[in-house]
């Protein structure tokens, strides 16, 4: 036994070495290379404790910075925060590193960004999903009126529901989460009003501003359990607003479909059909916030010398928020509903229809 395992070990090692050797036969690149266009501009990013792989605003902001590196040729620096105490240190580190524009993600960094902006009046900041207490000349808030897009998703959900029950739940009760749920609930209410139906929303009550939350943005099994409960209660369209926890919801929905139920999922933040392709078969639509584009845009205007501190508010009008195409489930949504959604979108853009949430950005 011993001899055999030793031989096997040697064989494995030989295999490994030859594989390494084979892969090491490439040609050496030429020395040097042309400096890229904007290589003297340093764009930086500090995440909140969610990290750059949160499948939510940290990740999409980070993608924006990386796109800027690729498209505009800037230098980038990144700092991932592991806890709240890291924010000030990370910001200070970015200031020491000579960042021209620092993207800070989330309301937890608002105080820190404000302090750093005051101490470094020459540095520019873009604060994602939050605003500073006092407006500062060198901080540009990037915020979203997500309720507008969630409204459309709610309307579609109500229109496609066969059980007359749709559901949503959140990760933690934060304004950036509940704004999705408010919009969703209003969209369902609009459908009920227009069609004289009574589609119920499980998991969120807009009036009392209370509902179902899993407690964090990490535990996918909790998202799965919560979704299973909601499906058991009769919901056939579920919108999780909980970052990576949404994957747990996707698993529960897929399981229910396998068990013969007709259940669909609405993704948030990015087009889930593209970013979570494992679950594209159950993906009805997504409520998108295009942070990557906004971040890249802010960097671009800063390079051109056009930085300003006016908040960027993502709306249906400027494409900052939207709902994703129905992709594979195109046939599940009737032409009538599609036309109505397009009309609602127009009405929201023109201001004829107001979508309001306690959590809406005040602009």
């Amino acid at each position, binding site marked *: 036994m011993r001899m055999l395992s030793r031989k096997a070990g040697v064989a494995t090692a030989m295999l490994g070495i030859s594989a*390494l*050797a084979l*892969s*090491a*036969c*490439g*040609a*050496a*690149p030429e020395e040097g290379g042309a400096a890229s266009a904007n290589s003297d501009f340093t764009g*930086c990013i500090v995440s909140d*404790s969610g990290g750059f792989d949160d499948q939510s605003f940290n990740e999409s902001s980070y993608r924006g910075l990386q796109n800027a590196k690729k498209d505009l040729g800037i230098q980038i*620096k*990144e*700092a*991932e925060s*592991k*806890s*709240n*105490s*890291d924010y*000030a*240190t*990370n910001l200070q*580190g*970015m200031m*020491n*590193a000579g960042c021209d524009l620092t993207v800070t993600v989330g*309301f*937890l960094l608002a*105080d820190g960004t404000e302090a750093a902006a005051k101490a470094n009046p020459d540095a520019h900041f873009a604060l994602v999903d*939050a605003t500073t207490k006092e407006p500062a000349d060198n901080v540009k808030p990037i915020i979203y009126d997500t309720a507008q897009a969630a409204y459309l998703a709610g309307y579609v959900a109500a229109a496609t529901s066969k059980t007359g029950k749709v559901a949503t739940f959140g990760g*933690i*009760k*934060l*304004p950036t989460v509940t704004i999705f749920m408010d919009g969703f609930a209003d969209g369902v209410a609009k459908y009920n009003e227009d069609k004289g139906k009574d589609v119920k929303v499980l998991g969120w009550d807009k009036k009392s501003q209370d509902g179902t939350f899993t*407690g964090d943005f990490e535990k996918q099994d909790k998202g799965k359990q919560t979704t299973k409960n909601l499906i058991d209660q009769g919901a056939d369209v579920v919108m999780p607003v909980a970052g990576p926890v949404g994957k747990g919801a996707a698993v529960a929905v897929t399981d229910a479909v396998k068990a013969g139920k007709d259940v669909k999922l609405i993704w948030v933040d990015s087009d889930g059909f593209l970013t979570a392709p494992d679950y594209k078969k159950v993906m009805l639509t997504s409520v998108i916030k295009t942070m990557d584009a906004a971040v890249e845009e802010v960097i671009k205007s800063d390079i051109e010398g056009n930085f300003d501190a006016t908040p960027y508010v993502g709306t249906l009008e400027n494409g900052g928020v939207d709902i994703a195409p129905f992709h594979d489930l195109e046939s599940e949504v009737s032409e009538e509903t599609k036309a109505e959604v397009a009309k609602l979108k127009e009405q929201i853009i023109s201001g004829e229809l107001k979508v309001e949430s*306690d*959590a809406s950005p005040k602009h």
Partner: protein
Amino acid sequence: MSAEKTAPAPAKNDLFKQITQGPGLVSVLGVIVALIVGGLLIAVTDERVATTAGYLFARPSDFFSALWEAGTSSYVALFEGSIYNSAQGFAPFLETLTVSTPLICAGLGVGLAFRAGLFNIGAQGQIIIGAAMAGYVGFAWHLPVVLHLLLVIVFGLIGGALWGGLVGLLKARTGAHEVILTIMFNYVALYLLDFLMNTQAFRRPGETNPISPILDTTAVFPALPGSRLHVGFLLAVLLTFGMGWLLKRSTLGFELRAVGHNPLAAQTAGVNVQRAMIVAMALAGALAGAAGVAQVAGTEKVLTAGIAGSLGFDAITVALLGRSTPWGTFFAGLLFGAFRAGAVNMQISTGTPIDIVLVVQSLIVLFIAAPPLIKAMFGLNPKKKKIQAAAAATQGGAQ
């Protein structure tokens, strides 16, 4: 096979003691090995190393210089971010002290419970409750200078002590296991704070996000100008001295240690074991509460749901690394503070992911939790050597 037979697994209590209070040399070696493994990981995962490995045979010098550079530059950046660099002088070291402060306090708490034979992993919850009470006093009450800060500290300590003492009480009265109790109490504390942060009493007026008002200036630790280092660090030093005195010189400390060594013998000798457990957990909680105070009234000056970060769990590592002694824990706290402070610089200037520091920290725990591993690696265990020699002899005979 033979090795397993000749080295019987130690009894439960022995193992606990070996892990929590073994020789200091194992700690030092554990840190060194963890750093070396961490360095290798950094080098292997480096982007340039990967590209240069692709043409290893065409120009090997590139590969080896990239390998060396990746490994060393990260640790140089770590050093420059935590101790000294030419641009800022010793300012990074002050940052290290700041970050260490809560780690030391909470580490002392965990270590004290270890000494009394209690595997306290509830520092996280105790920090949260301590920080919540201290924070509330800090932003909701408006009191004169000195008195305000004193009350902030006292309420923080009481908060932690209550949360820890409750565990001690349940354990002493019902025999429930402290590991389970502390884990559950961590969750209760976490969700309690989550809930509180969404109430009018804790939320900043005019703010929809769960963030408290900034603490009054009378309620925060005075800081050294130009840095984040605050008087809370002195509190940590004082507490270290205090714990040393308690364990070495006081009757109570003697009782706690006696219970930790052998509760039955201690009981026979007339020690009230139940009382000792409650007191040990309450004191441990108070120390963790002090960490909460240092966070909320020192570095953060504001209360959020994430106020404790992962401090309570890092504190366990700190206590383990410090062998549950006061000064061991103090220096272990400093080391971890340096890791934390330096990791920021490392991440920004070399692009090494901050997770690598967590890997190093976890490796340290691994090596400490498996002392025979370190001993075997460095040949510290003469008995083991003999066994190996014997094993080699029998193997030679068989062939």
